[in-house]
């Protein structure tokens, strides 16, 4: 199990971004992490995958543990070897390399099983197989997202941390990505899914966390979150229809206060 306990992260020695975050990712599940921009979702993922250093960030308190062993002091390469892999926000494929080479970089820590993993990725993403010799930078946005996910799967990770896989994709492609996440999960990879698209995330996840300004403010099974009136209003854009709206209701922050206090 991947567990985060009371995690505090500081950027540039002064900016406190995570303020005591705790979260559990149980094996075999899909866990969704929701939150507005700037809530600290990406920072949490960086803390887990060891990429804080690049951004001058540091874990000052708390811990990230994998099966009880702390991993938040390890370097990213070691964490990848332990089976935790992050797909960065915005795809971040190596545009100048070919699709094939992109996938092989993903297998850097698992060079022995390149063939099997390549077959697996190509069967998950047949589009990539068609264009495996092509320059990755010329793929469409959806294909690039699949390439980024496929590249992460090349080391056959136990835990996949997905940072906004639906970013900038058309609704139909979002559905496709969602189905792929379910498929990847079925094949035995645990997924921690960070999303702005709450409907999509909660429709596949079993458990959901909601973050706001560096704290976890809700921690419920996904079904309950989908029915929660605050979540429906703030994240799903589904207000209570038919009821008269007064300006008092529009002041979101007043109602948010309820869970921040």
């Amino acid at each position, binding site marked *: 199990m991947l567990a985060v306990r009371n995690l505090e992260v500081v950027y540039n020695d002064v900016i406190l971004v995570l303020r005591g975050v705790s979260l559990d990712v149980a094996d075999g599940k899909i866990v969704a992490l929701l939150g507005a921009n700037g809530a600290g979702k990406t920072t949490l993922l960086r803390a887990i995958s060891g990429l804080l250093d690049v951004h001058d960030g540091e874990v000052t308190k708390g811990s990230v543990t994998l099966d009880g062993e702390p991993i938040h002091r390890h370097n990213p390469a070691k964490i*990848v070897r332990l089976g935790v892999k992050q797909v960065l926000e915005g795809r971040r494929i190596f545009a100048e390399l070919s699709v094939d080479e992109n996938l092989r970089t993903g297998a850097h820590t698992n060079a022995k099983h390149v063939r099997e993993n390549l077959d697996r990725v190509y069967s998950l993403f047949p589009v990539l197989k068609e264009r495996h010799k092509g320059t990755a930078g010329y793929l469409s946005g959806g294909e690039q997202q699949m390439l980024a996910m496929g590249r992460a799967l090349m080391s056959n990770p136990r835990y996949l941390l997905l940072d906004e896989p639906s970013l900038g994709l058309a609704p139909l492609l979002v559905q496709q990505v969602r189905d792929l996440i379910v498929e990847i999960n079925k094949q035995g990879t645990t997924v921690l899914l960070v999303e702005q698209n709450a409907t999509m995330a909660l429709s596949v996840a079993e458990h959901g966390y909601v973050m706001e300004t560096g704290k976890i403010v809700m921690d419920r099974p996904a079904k309950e979150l989908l029915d929660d009136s605050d979540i429906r209003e703030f994240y799903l854009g589904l207000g209570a229809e038919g009821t008269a709206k007064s300006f008092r209701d529009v002041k979101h922050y007043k109602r948010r206060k309820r869970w921040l206090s």
Partner: protein
Amino acid sequence: MKELLSSTLAGLGQGSVYALLALGFVIIYKSMRVISFAQPALMLAGAVLVSYLVGPFGFIIAVILGVVGIALLGLGLERTVIRPMVGKPVFVVAIITLGIDIALRVVINGFIGTDVRQVGDPWGFSRVSLLGVTVQERYIAMFLTTAVVITVLFAFFKYTRLGLATRAASYDQETALAQGISVSTVFAMAWAIAGGLAAIAGTFVATGVGVDQQLWIIALKALPAIILGGLDSLGGAVVGGLTIGVVESLIATYQSDFAPWLGDNFSVVSPYVVMLLVLLVKPYGLFGTKEVERV
């Protein structure tokens, strides 16, 4: 005609040395986005090391040991001096490499002394006739060795796991880290390769003429070569190096006949003139990567 051919061949030989040096610059630039001005010192160190080893071990083994030695020196410099500066502005790192260059050369000069040291190569100034064209053997040796080295290097970057990791890290460090690639290994390797290449180049520059304290100036001709080829292109570095070598050689042969008013030794500055002309027409060099972008 024969004069033209032999001049071109000599140019290709000399140019392949520039290409080796230019490759060192480009490999470091690609991995760290920094131009390392320590290359001249590494080249000089290589030549001097070989000149000391050639006595007990013979030329071939001395060169191999020299390459390994200077690669380790490059590695050591990266670990001790450059590594703490990662993340600092590129300009700062570039100036530090300049400092390394000067400091290193002062130390090396102590080993050279006032004499000219010989690297004990088997070629000297002896000539051979190829299809009626006379050319110095050492130029042929330079060209062939460089061809082999470059082939190995390109195969390394294209096919090996570490080579691929280097290319990935040079494109996007954070993403490379997220794939489990150790970027610090990539940096260290870049410096080691650049050191090894500089050592080979230094040895070849010193063939025939020997090593003196001014040998390092030749390494500066790699700068026009890389700018000609485009800073981040390995192929460009090779083409740039060869072009500079040939141009220099042809001008040395023909300038006194066709443009005597330019004075003596115009060939020495000709690489820089070529560089200026290319920059006027193609500011990113001949082979600088055009960004891959969907339209």
